[in-house]
């Protein structure tokens, strides 16, 4: 607490690190520098924070901050400091050169979901308007592609169906492939709150995590066998008459097909495939099926598999079959991992989407976006390729130049040697970062950009709630915002008139216009409304609309027929099965103190020896 006379101010903002987006205050001294954190009683977290949020402020005035652009002609040379003029001129020149010689698609842009939504929007617009390339994607597609696909198939919309607060109203919580205690510690309070009211907790996870340790049922199944498990649970739910026939008849399609498929998944099959006792299948089916209100939440544990979308669909099938959608305490969600994992994939930073969650392949959507951006529909590029495929294209020379911002791809991409080879093959690589990350250290040009506390903007948390981050201090001299960098590059590429943004507010206003009437509608959200309310869930089509915390309350999805599309899914053997040479499965875990690749600066977050 601030002693009187110390001259400090508290700036309300949110943590940058995960999809919960806890509210917090940054403490700013009388010289305008951030020096500490103070808990904040925000709706989402009510003063609570995890270790990352508490330590986050230490990144801001860290001694290793980059303070000037760095450049070199070849990777054999060391970096030399340069002026912004020189660095930006060189970058724009290289962009032109590569595109003139090898086509527009030879230059790619790779963004990130740690960027605010304004910047994510600009990334997409820059790639498609200023560069005219189809290759734009972000690190979020590495994580959320499976769930996004499943959500689109089932509901026609990609977001969590319920707010976190619904957890407190639920009677049975099914947490699958999610290590809540280590990845979203603050959400644990919601789980405990539900349990205090008598709710049952079922955790599906090969490992006994901290939350799994005290769960009512911990299904410690073999990695990669979740589809078989959920099919088996649905089998028992159907067998015991625990399905919600009224809901199935009124709001879903494909139940008969699904039923036939899960008939082949009796509990014995789950025993054989998943390695769990049959009575666990029975118990979970009884708890979930008989609960008045049940919810299922999952994260990457069940999604990041070769058929991850199928697994998500098997969970959705279970929720729909038991009528658990669109009611307080009853529903479904995937929890977005990154701070702006939800917002970062909504507005065109992804290879197949346009602002407002529109599709780049849909002609009507394309026309609308082109009109908004003041270009011909024909000028709008086609769909690109996901980030994981782009590395292959870089290796093969189809992509020769890259602008990276908001990511540290050389660390977070799987198959490091391939990623390294891909980046090595690039003719020109420019990376924006606050620190000399591994990826930036590999580039030709490094541009120092502001941290999350040095610019205002919005992020969307895993509940699809848009929250406002406020600027707590000015960036150090020589450091600029990503927004400014993109606008300056666009200027040099001849598109300055479409990128005349003074700051985040102007970008957000354009974003609001861009999303009006689209599936992901931000048009009713303003900075002022966010400050008043503490966050608004989209869609929010007008400024007097309160937002939409819970989806499907009217029983209608975003499909033209308004129904939940049930997709029968089969469990398939993994692509690389066990054999004598490879008898073990390694599954990645999480540490509560670290996230992605960027938490190595705060000195007090624990680290193992040698890391």
């Amino acid at each position: 607490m601030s002693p009187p006379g110390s001259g400090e101010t508290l700036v309300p903002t949110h943590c940058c690190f995960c999809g919960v987006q806890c509210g917090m205050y940054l403490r700013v001294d009388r010289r305008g520098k951030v020096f500490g954190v103070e808990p904040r009683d925000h709706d989402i977290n009510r003063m609570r924070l995890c270790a990352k949020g508490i330590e986050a402020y230490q990144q801001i005035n860290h001694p290793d901050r980059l303070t000037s652009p760095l450049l070199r002609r070849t990777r054999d040379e060391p970096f030399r400091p340069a002026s912004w003029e020189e660095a930006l001129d060189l970058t724009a020149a290289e962009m032109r050169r590569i595109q003139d010689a090898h086509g527009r698609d030879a230059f790619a842009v790779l963004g990130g979901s740690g960027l605010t939504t304004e910047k994510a929007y600009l990334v997409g617009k820059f790639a498609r308007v200023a560069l005219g390339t189809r290759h734009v994607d972000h690190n979020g597609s590495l994580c959320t592609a499976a769930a996004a696909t499943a959500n689109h198939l089932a509901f026609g919309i990609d977001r969590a169906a319920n707010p976190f607060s619904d957890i407190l109203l639920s009677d049975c919580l099914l947490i699958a492939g999610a290590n809540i205690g280590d990845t979203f510690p603050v959400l644990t309070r919601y789980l405990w709150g539900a349990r205090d009211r008598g709710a049952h907790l079922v955790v599906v996870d090969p490992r006994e995590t901290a939350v799994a340790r005290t769960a009512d049922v911990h299904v410690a199944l073999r990695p990669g066998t979740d589809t078989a498990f959920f099919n088996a649970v649905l089998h028992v739910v159907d067998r015991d008459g625990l399905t919600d026939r009224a809901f199935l008849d009124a709001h879903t399609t494909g139940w008969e097909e699904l039923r036939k498929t899960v008939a082949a998944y009796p509990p014995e099959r789950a025993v054989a495939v998943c390695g769990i006792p049959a009575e666990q299948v029975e118990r979970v089916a009884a708890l979930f099926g008989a609960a008045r209100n049940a919810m299922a939440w999952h994260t990457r544990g069940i999604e990041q598999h070769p058929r991850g979308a199928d697994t998500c669909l098997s969970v959705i099938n279970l929720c729909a079959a038991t009528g658990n959608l669109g009611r307080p305490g009853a529903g479904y969600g995937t929890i977005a991992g990154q701070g702006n994992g939800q917002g970062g994939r909504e507005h065109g930073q992804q290879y197949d989407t346009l602002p407002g969650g529109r599709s780049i392949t849909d002609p009507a959507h394309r026309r609308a976006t082109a009109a908004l951006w003041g270009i011909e529909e024909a000028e709008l590029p086609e769909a690109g390729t996901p980030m994981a495929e782009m590395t292959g294209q870089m290796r093969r020379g189809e992509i020769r130049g890259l602008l990276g911002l908001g990511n540290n791809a050389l660390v977070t991409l799987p198959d490091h040697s391939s990623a390294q080879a891909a980046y090595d093959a690039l003719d020109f690589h420019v990376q924006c970062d606050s620190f000399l990350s591994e990826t930036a250290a590999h580039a030709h040009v490094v541009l120092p950009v502001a941290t999350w506390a040095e610019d205002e903007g919005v992020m969307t948390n895993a509940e699809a709630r848009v929250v406002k981050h406020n600027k707590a201090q000015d960036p150090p001299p020589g450091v600029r915002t990503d927004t400014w960098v993109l606008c300056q590059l666009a200027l040099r590429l001849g598109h300055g008139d479409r990128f005349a943004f003074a700051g985040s507010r102007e970008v957000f206003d354009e974003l609001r216009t861009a999303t009006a009437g689209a599936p992901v509608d931000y048009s009713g959200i303003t900075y002022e409304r966010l400050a008043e309310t503490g966050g608004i869930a989209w869609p929010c089509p007008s400024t007097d609309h309160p937002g939409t915390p819970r989806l499907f309350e009217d029983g209608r999805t975003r499909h033209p027929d308004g129904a939940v599309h049930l997709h029968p899914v089969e469990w398939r053997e993994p692509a690389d099965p066990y054999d004598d040479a490879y008898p073990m499965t390694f599954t990645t875990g999480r540490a509560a103190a670290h996230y992605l690749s960027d938490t190595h600066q705060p000195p007090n977050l624990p680290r193992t020896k040698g890391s």
Partner: protein
Amino acid sequence: MSDPQAEARADVSGGIPGEQPAQARAGAPPAGDAPAGALPAGDAPSPASLRASSVATAVSLLLVLAIVLGSRVLRNFDAALLPYAVATVFLAFGVAYRYMLWLSAPASRCLLRQARRGVFFRVRALFSRASLSRARHPLRTAARQRARAETRATARAGGTAQAPAFTAQAPAFTAQAPAFTAQAPAITAQAPAFTAQAPAITAQEPVFRERPRARRIAHQLLLWGSALAVLITFPLTWGWISFTATSAAGPGYELRVWGYRLAGFDALSIPGWALFHALDLAAVLVIAGAGYFLWRRMRDRGALTGQRFAYDLVPLLALIVVAVTGLLLTFSSLVLRGGGYEFLALLHMASVVFALIYLPFGKFFHVVQRPAATGMRRAAHPAAPAAQDGAAVLVCRRCEEPIGAASAIEDLRTTMRELDLGFDEWAEYCPRCKRQLRGAAYLTQVKKGYV
């Protein structure tokens, strides 16, 4: 930044004269009425308190005698300085009283016992270089020795041991793949990181910071300024030091101690000037030191949060007032030709008397207590235990981490039993094991899971 609770806390520490100073056992209200470990509740003064009073009285009387004798039966005693002399007698009483009371508590009494043992049998060690230098905590020495031994052992073994081949075990792993194997490595992989992070009394990581240099320098200024002032003023007010002129008119002066001529000097020379104005130098040092601390207490966030007016700020203010009024006296005599001298003299006297009477009961008691405590500790447990003497450092019964000098732990257990703290066996476990054992006991005997 004071509040009623903080003020009361100052009482507990014995901040107001006339209240009983405390040895921390402040269980029962009202504040200030805090009996020490050996004192029974009730109205009658305790044995310890009586003993302390009698010793203090004796000390005061001795001082009076010393003053009388040292001033040649008051011949060299300056009557104008009488209030100062009386204040010093009160000071002597207060210091002796608090000192005795402090020593009567079981913990300090124990340390004194150990120290006496130490002095008699380790006189040489007491004055050895290791003992006089900034003695390292025995645990840091133990940790160093262990690290050296480990490095030697590894070098001898020729690097890390080979990992045992595990392919032969593979089939067992596949069968067990769920909960167990994936779980244990994750936990043990995490554990080393966490233990390395724990604030270590074995000093694995230099997590803490010492007092910054500015504070140390300021403290030295304050210390030497005050010491100089005391060295000059106390003997002066007692009449032990006097100045006589060698001739009626000349600049020559004689410095006399207990009436005996110690040195002669020329009042107009530089040494002479320095001697006469030594108190002004002391005042400057004190103002510099105390002024820094006062400034720090208005700005520094760490200080602002916990400070108490009576305990932290009053002593500093008192010293500054004493120093400033003293300088004003010099200013008056040098510049104002003695204008306002009487008033200033009265002011100075009042501030000095207040400071001297206040000293034993506030923060500045550490001037007396801390050297005594540190000295006792050093005499009882001299610096580095012998390198090969494993018995000198006790290791935790469970995890074998060093926890302290064996003699210190033994004496602590004795003290604990004297104080009726029956869990002294616990002292032979390191804090981490205590916590882990308690956690394990909770898991097995109270509540394993959520409810």
